[in-house]
């Protein structure tokens, strides 16, 4: 049960964000991790990638974060799905996570989902 107005960013991989995914919802609060492929200072839009998947991130509300291409970043924010079905994450916090073990991260994410599902089914 959420105990505050701030919504938790659901842990998702970029591959999870396809149109038929339950995470692909307007306004969904998500936490994403990916390597910075491009960044535009003019538009504050970053593009992060993970394997074959990519996602645009609107970073206009972020402060004290420098953007370096090929570094790995993690963002928490809300998904905005545009009329052409392209999604962009409106980030409210972000950080550089260079050094993260992405294999361990993704494996742990799957374990965590299973753990939560098991606990919800037994309560």
């Amino acid at each position, binding site marked *: *049960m*959420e*105990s*505050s107005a*701030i*919504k*938790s*960013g*659901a*842990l998702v991989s970029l591959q999870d964000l396809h149109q038929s995914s339950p995470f692909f919802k307007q306004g969904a609060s998500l*936490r994403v991790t990916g390597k910075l492929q491009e960044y535009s200072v003019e538009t504050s839009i970053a593009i992060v990638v993970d394997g074959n998947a990519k996602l645009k991130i609107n970073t206009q509300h*972020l*402060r*004290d*974060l420098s953007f370096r291409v090929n570094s*790995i970043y*993690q963002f*928490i924010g809300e998904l905005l799905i545009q009329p052409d079905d392209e999604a962009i994450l409106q980030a*409210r*916090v*972000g*950080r550089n*996570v*260079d*050094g*993260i*073990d992405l294999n*361990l*991260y993704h494996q*742990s994410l799957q*374990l*965590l989902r299973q*753990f*939560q599902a098991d*606990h919800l089914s037994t*309560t």
Partner: protein
Amino acid sequence: MEQLHRLYNTHVKLLAFDLLSLTQTPSHSPSDPISFSRRGTFFFRAETVGTITSRELKPNKFLKFTVDDGTGCIVCVLWLNQLVSPYFSRCSPPSVRLIAQMASHFAAEVRLGVVARVRGRITSYRGAVQITVSDVVVERDPNVETLHWLECMSLASKCFDVRLS
């Protein structure tokens, strides 16, 4: 009685969704410590690791912030009123000043977007579980959150969800 206090001084590592689902144990007397339970295990203190996603400061009163660990958001309250609180007037002034300094230091560490390890007592406010903070450490290693999830899951399956005979 022994099982009730088994974890009294332990900051138990709990995932946010787990912590937020705890139910407050009815106390049989005013002197009983406030506890929360889940599947027959009683918890008094908790440790969480996650990203700070909100911060609300009332100077010289408290800092209220949220920690998002990916499974939920935990409200944390760090009291900053030690120098004016009647509760601390019973303690020696140098001790109170030290406690106040530490609290002020922790408050400065809490910034939006950082990952922090927060420990404290499990409390409740208006029916919602929260943590009354005793300490905060900013974690810079990007793998600590992953490690925290794994530790929480391991502890839950090996300790907290195991019925003691």
